């Protein structure tokens, strides 16, 4: 039995097993937080004030929401990874990039504040329409912004921008964290989205979030990538530009 177990442990992980291992790793951190905060809330010996209890309850809510987002993204990833696109059958339509980005920033601002961060958004005043599924596009942008919040330096803003190019609109998300070593940067550019690549300087990162973001963006004809940054890291997502005229 023991030998059999050791053989199983030593086997290299295939694609789906690697995703399960990365998912377990990524879920462990927020679940640990939920467990610890819950313990604090019921521990009368800690003498928490009502104000402190309210603060921890709010954090519990934010961490739970983030964990649920991760589970939702894993479900989407499974459907796409297993060639179940037909069952997935999402509809593409003209989507206003600005609206999606503003919604993401609105929803993640309380989470960013817990990390003493501000989310900033810069875009053109005219609408930037892309061909996408609004919900999936939201998930891609949420993924990139959530990743940036976790790796940014407290006190510095996470900067989100949307710029129109010839055939696509690029949503870029910049954090001022430790950045990625040149060696890892090149490796990551080659493998981004095709395999999970843990990032140096990004503690606890399995690369799962970027893998899923690329899967979702690719399903809509887009892609994610890694931009140039003198300090920190910039990831971007490209979405196909819609040629449809708008009345907005």
């Amino acid at each position, binding site marked *: 039995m023991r030998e059999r177990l050791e053989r199983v442990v030593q086997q290299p992980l295939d694609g789906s097993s690697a995703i399960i291992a990365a998912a377990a790793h990524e879920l462990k951190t927020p679940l640990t*937080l939920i467990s610890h905060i819950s313990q604090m809330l019921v521990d009368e010996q800690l003498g928490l004030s009502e104000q402190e209890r309210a603060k921890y309850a709010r954090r519990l809510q934010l961490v739970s929401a983030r964990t649920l987002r991760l589970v939702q993204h894993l479900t989407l990833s499974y459907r796409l990874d297993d060639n179940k696109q037909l069952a997935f059958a999402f509809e593409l339509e003209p989507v206003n990039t600005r609206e999606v980005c503003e919604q993401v920033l609105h929803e993640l601002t309380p989470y960013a504040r817990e990390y003493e961060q501000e989310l900033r958004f810069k875009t053109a005043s005219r609408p930037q329409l892309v061909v996408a599924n609004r919900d999936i596009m939201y998930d891609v942008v949420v993924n990139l912004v959530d990743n940036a919040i976790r790796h940014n330096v407290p006190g510095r803003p996470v900067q989100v921008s949307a710029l129109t190019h010839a055939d696509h609109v690029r949503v870029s998300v910049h954090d001022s964290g430790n950045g990625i070593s040149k060696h890892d940067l090149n490796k990551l550019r080659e493998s981004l989205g095709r395999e999970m690549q843990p990032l140096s300087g990004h503690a606890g990162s399995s690369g799962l979030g970027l893998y899923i973001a690329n899967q979702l963006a690719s399903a809509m004809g887009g892609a994610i990538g890694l931009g140039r940054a003198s300090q920190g890291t910039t990831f971007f997502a490209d979405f196909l530009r819609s040629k449809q005229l708008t009345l907005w």
Partner: protein
Amino acid sequence: MATVLIVEDELLLADCYARWLRAEGHTTYHVTDAQQALDMLDEQQVNVVLLDMLLSGANGMQVLNTLQSHVDLSGLPVVLCSNALPQQLPDFSAYGVKAVLDKSVLTREKLGIAIAGALA
């Protein structure tokens, strides 16, 4: 009672450990990276270090190596916290590590026992 230096870059976890340890009567300091840890150890008298294995910038192993190479700090007891299973981690005993704790199942009681054991 002892003075514990918490080296943890997840602020919520650090806050939790500090509250748990203070409830046991310990004094705590908190830093988020290796360099801050070394600066704090230069400034303050610390009896034990509670060290996260995965830190942004430098990991726990680098902190352990630095502590080992520092003459005045090489005997400082360390309690490691990790999200990896203890059996997946190498043997840290040569680095002054007194206990390795699995973060996901950590409780106030387990942390208190580990710190008391490290100080014994």
